[in-house]
């Protein structure tokens, strides 16, 4: 059984309320930090912990904090990214809904470290009921002296505000989020300048994911070095995974990043295997933007090593044979799923969510969706597959924000690994409307290269 740091207390009855949370040891990290640590020391601990951003990119959090510009007389802001809109990702929702005080606690410590007197939680609009939960928690924190003026006599003031988004995936991109928070249209900004220099209201800003900020609590409680002992290599601590698709036990799991992908899918503790005795066909381990992998590349890397649920192992093999940890949205596809249809679904999503600022993403996402639709509905041509490849290639890397890449990668990976299935759709336009390509050879063991 893996170690739990975030969700350990999530199911204690009444943990949503301040009294129970406090009784279970809540707000200890604020006490520790405010009484015994300077803001820089907090940042130092986060650096030592090796914590990597849980929002998708996996950027080291301590480093990000130390990049924050600190000019005299200019306010600094911490913004919590709770926009969570990546298909397959629902871990932040779980955390905020069940144990909201953990996030508030983490936010207070992080605000202290960064010197943010006004801290914002930008939450996706559809999480309307969670806004109430968070605001309740903030009110309780205020009432008990964890927020407000001169917290614990340190002279540090802090207030937290919750701002609802209006239902756009793109507002999860940190600069679009900042624009939206300022009351503008949620278009990603052109970088540089980065938020660490010019963010919210043109002031230095740190944007972090919900889970990242919640993880600050155990880091301060345990100490950075202790935290870093959990996990392997540069994947330290625990990670929330939201698992969905063809599994027996969909839900949110906290893992320490040492278990294998195979164990994660099949063990009773986690996904509990695939229902109805079906076989695994493919998996997207990190949310819709990361490359899809066929079964035979999922459990073992191309080199033949066991694939572990962590940053390095999941990305082993790069784009050719690997994928990414992403935001931890773990989507499992069994043998009855059609990869073409699945790719179309994602393409439709990205077309719909593109902000439309830059031409490759605005025009390319729509084009890919239309072609995929043709292929899926038996009207595709062989040349369409190459065309799709060329379109995604011309979007990737040429856009303002990573949404363009996020739209390109799923298409690229699907064609790279499942080209046969696309070709079968084209060659069998009638048959493909009534049955699936099925598992085919996608679970067959791959020859492992012999190393000298």
């Amino acid at each position, binding site marked *: 059984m893996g170690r739990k740091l975030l969700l350990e207390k999530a199911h204690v009855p009444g943990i949503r309320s301040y009294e129970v949370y406090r009784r279970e040891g809540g707000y200890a990290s604020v006490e520790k930090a405010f009484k015994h640590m300077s803001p820089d020391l907090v940042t130092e601990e986060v650096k030592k912990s090796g914590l990597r951003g849980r929002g998708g990119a996996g950027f080291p959090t301590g480093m990000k904090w130390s990049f924050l510009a600190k000019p005299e007389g200019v306010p600094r802001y911490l913004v919590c990214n709770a926009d969570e809109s990546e298909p397959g990702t629902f871990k932040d929702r779980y955390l905020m809904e069940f144990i909201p005080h953990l996030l508030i606690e983490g936010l207070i410590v992080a605000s202290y470290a960064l010197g943010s007197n006004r801290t914002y939680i930008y939450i996706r609009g559809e999480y309307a009921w969670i806004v109430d939960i968070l605001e309740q928690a903030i009110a309780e924190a205020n009432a008990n002296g964890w927020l407000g003026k001169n917290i614990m006599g340190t002279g540090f003031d802090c207030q937290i505000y919750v701002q609802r988004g209006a239902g*756009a995936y*793109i507002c999860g991109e940190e600069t679009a989020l900042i624009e939206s928070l300022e009351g503008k*249209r949620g278009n990603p900004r*052109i970088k540089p300048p980065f938020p660490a220099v010019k963010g919210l209201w043109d002031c230095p800003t740190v944007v972090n994911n919900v889970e990242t900020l919640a993880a600050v609590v155990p880091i301060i409680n345990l100490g950075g070095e202790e935290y870093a002992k959990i996990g392997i290599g540069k994947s330290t601590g625990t990670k929330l995974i939201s698992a969905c698709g063809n599994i027996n036990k969909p839900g949110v799991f906290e893992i320490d990043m040492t278990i294998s992908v195979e164990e994660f899918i099949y063990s009773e503790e986690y996904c509990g295997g695939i229902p109805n005795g079906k076989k695994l066909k493919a998996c997207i381990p990190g949310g819709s933007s990361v490359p899809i992998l066929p079964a035979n590349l999922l459990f073992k890397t191309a080199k033949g090593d066991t694939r572990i649920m962590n940053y390095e192992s999941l990305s082993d093999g790069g784009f050719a044979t690997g994928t990414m940890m992403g935001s931890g949205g773990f989507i499992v596809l069994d043998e009855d799923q059609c990869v073409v249809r699945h790719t179309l679904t994602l393409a439709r999503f990205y*077309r*719909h*969510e*593109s*902000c*439309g*600022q*830059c*031409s*490759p993403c*605005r*025009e*390319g*996402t*729509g*084009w890919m969706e*239309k072609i995929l639709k043709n292929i899926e509905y038996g009207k595709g041509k062989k040349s369409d597959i190459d*065309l799709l490849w060329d379109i995604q290639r*011309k979007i990737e*890397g*040429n*856009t*303002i924000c990573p949404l363009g890449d996020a739209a390109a990668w799923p298409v690229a990976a699907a064609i790279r690994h499942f080209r046969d299935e696309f070709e079968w759709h084209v060659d069998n336009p009638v048959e493909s409307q009534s049955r699936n390509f099925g598992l085919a050879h996608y679970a067959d063991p791959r020859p492992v290269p012999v190393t000298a």
Partner: protein
Amino acid sequence: MAEEKKLFKVTIDNITIEVEPGTSILNAARMIGGDVAPPAMCYYSKLKGSGGKCRTCLVEVAAGSTADPRPMPKLVASCRTNVMDGMVVKNITSERVIDARNGVVEFLLLNHPLDCPICDQAGECHLQDLSYDHGKEGTRYEFNRRTFKKHDLGPYIQLHMTRCILCYRCVFTADQLTNKRVHGVLDRGDHAEIATYIEKSLDNDFIGNVIDVCPVGALTDKTFRFKNRVWFLKPVDAHRDCPKCSGKVTLWNRGDEVFRVTARKDQWGEVEDWICNECRFEKKSTNDWVIEGPTKVSRQSVISQGHYEGLKMPKETLVEVLDGRKPRLLMDIHDVSEVNKPTVDLSKIAGPAHSDDFK
């Protein structure tokens, strides 16, 4: 003691120049000029915050700076990336850039209606130039192009949303030149559109400038609509004493008739001085203006075909050959046909005939 300003050395397509720190790669390339300057469809030096969107100006940075000579992994938007000392940039010498730019042109044209034959912008359209310079002959797009609900932008400005490339220039213009912006981008992605909120007229004094900044025919002058093709007109620089703006304009004339008034543009197609609506829309008589002389037009431009500067007419030899007799008119078309107005002498109209000539 004047401190010596340190200049940055930057090499673009193997040509090295020195520029002030804070100069963008695009502006450095423009200083070199010619083909080294990347095309720019959204950047506009006079509009704060513009650029970065169209991605036509992407270039490869082969070396970041002397201090950190690593190449940048991705192509960068030259309009929004500043030069560093010792930076090495590849524009037309980079296969990657040419390939990516080709892609961008294809993307920009994907949903463009290509209705140039009926578009007032034709002949001065940056998208036409871009496609000509960097595009392919055919399209691989086999779907219907997108359409939009029509919006009325009032008596002066015509919006054809189907032609818009979402460069945001007009939005910045409306934002920065006028104090009442009723014009922005609605919706997102490939269904995003430039529109007035609740179809309000844009009645600000300087709003007409959106026509000049629009690189395509999405925003055109309603008072000039379908009146003429730009290459049949002769642009002349003129000015007037205007209480609101600089009053420095280009008149687009045929004969003595002013068909259109625009701001003057520099060699990159950018407005030199913003002009007010009155100058642009209301002053359509040569008497309103002090003429300075013909506008310089690039020889590459189709508009230069209407320029007769330094043109030498061949010597008329017929009369000489006929021993001083004038040639006899064999048939006067007006005697035969009543279809067109006999009072209109076709040979006396400046330029080709137009339906207006027979009104």
